[in-house]
């Protein structure tokens, strides 16, 4: 009965676009803020190129704090901040704020892990060649870790797809919202199932593309 109902298809299409919008923009911000954080966490760690115990400890604590707040609580807790930043506390655009804030510390740790995998010997070689700290970051650490970083972005995006469904619960729109409003509240298991199928395909697609790009970039 649903397959010949254009209204449901339209709702599904809108929800999918909303999810892509939320996930895309918040992934972008997570990388934008998380990457520099991750770089700082790495290079200030003991034995790295700019060891600094104070910065490293403070940043580490902030990142851990950000990661320990459950997303659903964060979402509600920062409503005022969200309203101040984007002018509204409901809807898809508003959902992007907590999504970005939640994914930033996660991506910072992912970045740190990727950068730590860069061979110490290669960094030492660059130092022996007279490279500056910035040159080591941009010409050694990031290019050497690029493949691993792409996988990190992929993991972050997949996580955000899950979180965005939760954001739907407070009127964020997207596939999660559709599943709850139609599938759960209006007793339409068929819509619930098709929404989940779309989510599964979306996650598979993101992961496949991410893995493909990472493989192409990997010359190890």
């Amino acid at each position, binding site marked *: 009965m649903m397959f010949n109902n254009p209204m449901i298809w339209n709702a599904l299409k809108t929800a999918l676009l909303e999810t892509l919008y939320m996930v895309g923009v918040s992934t972008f911000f997570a990388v934008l803020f998380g990457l520099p954080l991750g770089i700082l966490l790495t290079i200030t760690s003991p034995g790295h190129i700019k060891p600094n115990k104070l910065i490293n400890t403070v940043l580490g604590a902030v990142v851990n704090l950000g990661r320990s707040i459950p997303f659903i609580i964060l979402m509600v807790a920062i409503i005022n901040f969200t309203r101040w930043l984007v002018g509204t506390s409901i809807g898809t655009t508003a959902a992007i704020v907590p999504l970005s804030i939640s994914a930033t510390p996660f991506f910072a740790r992912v970045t740190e892990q990727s950068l730590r995998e860069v*061979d110490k010997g290669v960094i030492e*070689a660059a*130092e*022996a060649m007279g490279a*500056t700290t910035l040159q080591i970051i941009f010409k050694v650490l990031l*290019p050497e870790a690029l493949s691993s970083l792409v996988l990190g972005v992929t993991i972050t995006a997949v996580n955000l797809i899950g979180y965005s469904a939760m954001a739907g619960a407070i009127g964020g729109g997207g596939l999660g919202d559709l599943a709850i409003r139609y599938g759960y509240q209006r007793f339409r298991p068929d819509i619930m199932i098709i929404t989940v199928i779309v989510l599964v395909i979306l996650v598979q697609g993101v992961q496949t593309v991410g893995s493909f790009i990472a493989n192409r970039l990997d010359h190890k």
Partner: protein
Amino acid sequence: MGVIFLIRFENVTKIYKGENEVVALKNIDLTINDGEIFGIIGLSGAGKSTLVRCINLLETPDEGRVLVDGVDMMNLTRRELRQHRKSIGMIFQHFNLLSSRTVAENVAFPLELSGVPKRQRIKKVRDLLELVGLSDKARAYPSQLSGGQKQRVGIARALANDQKILLCDEATSALDPQTTMSILELLKKINRERGITVVIITHEMHVIKEICDRVAVIEDGRIIETGIVEDVLLNPTTETARTFLKTVIKSEVPPEVAARLKESNGGELLQVTFLGGSTGEPIINEVVKNFDVVVNILYGNIDQIHDITFGMLVLKLTGPQRKQAKAFLEEKGLKVKVIDDV
């Protein structure tokens, strides 16, 4: 004008602090001359890696001075130090190439750091790859190369800024013997053609024997012996140097031979060690001609360091004039040892 020094350690001490304090280098005084190939040999943990890293200050000494080309490295600002590091090339045991860059891009890396324009970089990289014999691999990634090829890339990269000094940190230790030889040949060629000073640290005596002009033996953070390779190899004064020596020069009769010698009855067994000039003369022939003896060569071993030949023979002498023959050998400057019990 005599030979001028290029690198000089003055009373250098390095201590790793921590729970267990480790004295990595203790009062090192060492001079490395311009244009020579200088070897530093020691067992792992002896401090040789730390020593070579004190030249470009990848490790900072706690005491003493390091002079490179007349400059006190520890008096430099960070910016000046980076500038000076560009004139000191370094190659590593595990090559340390950037896996995300092609061979050509790896060689271009130090040029990029120095801000050399792209057109010049391309030309320079082409010349360097030709020098190390890898012109056909310019577009390959390091993972597609053999160990020897990777080290050639490392060498090309270490020469890109026309360095005056090349530091080699166990550069052949991860390579098979044949590849090691070809890398050593390349280092020798670069030293000869470019006049670049090469500092090699290794735990392999044959590397020293093959290409070094002078050598320092390091043990427990101290230099225990230093000198021209021939001198140190042939007249070692310390037990450690002697141990290293044994790895390249067999001066002892191997057990299998010894067992066979025990079975051969009659006559007298002599171990004759010879060195340098005397090898040009037909001494054994003269012994047989001049004395009433029969000489049987049971075992022999001859080797060469630079142009000095040395070796050891085990002879069995039978006949009445054995004593005179023995005296004759000694007269010719050979070391003769009677071995009744081999």
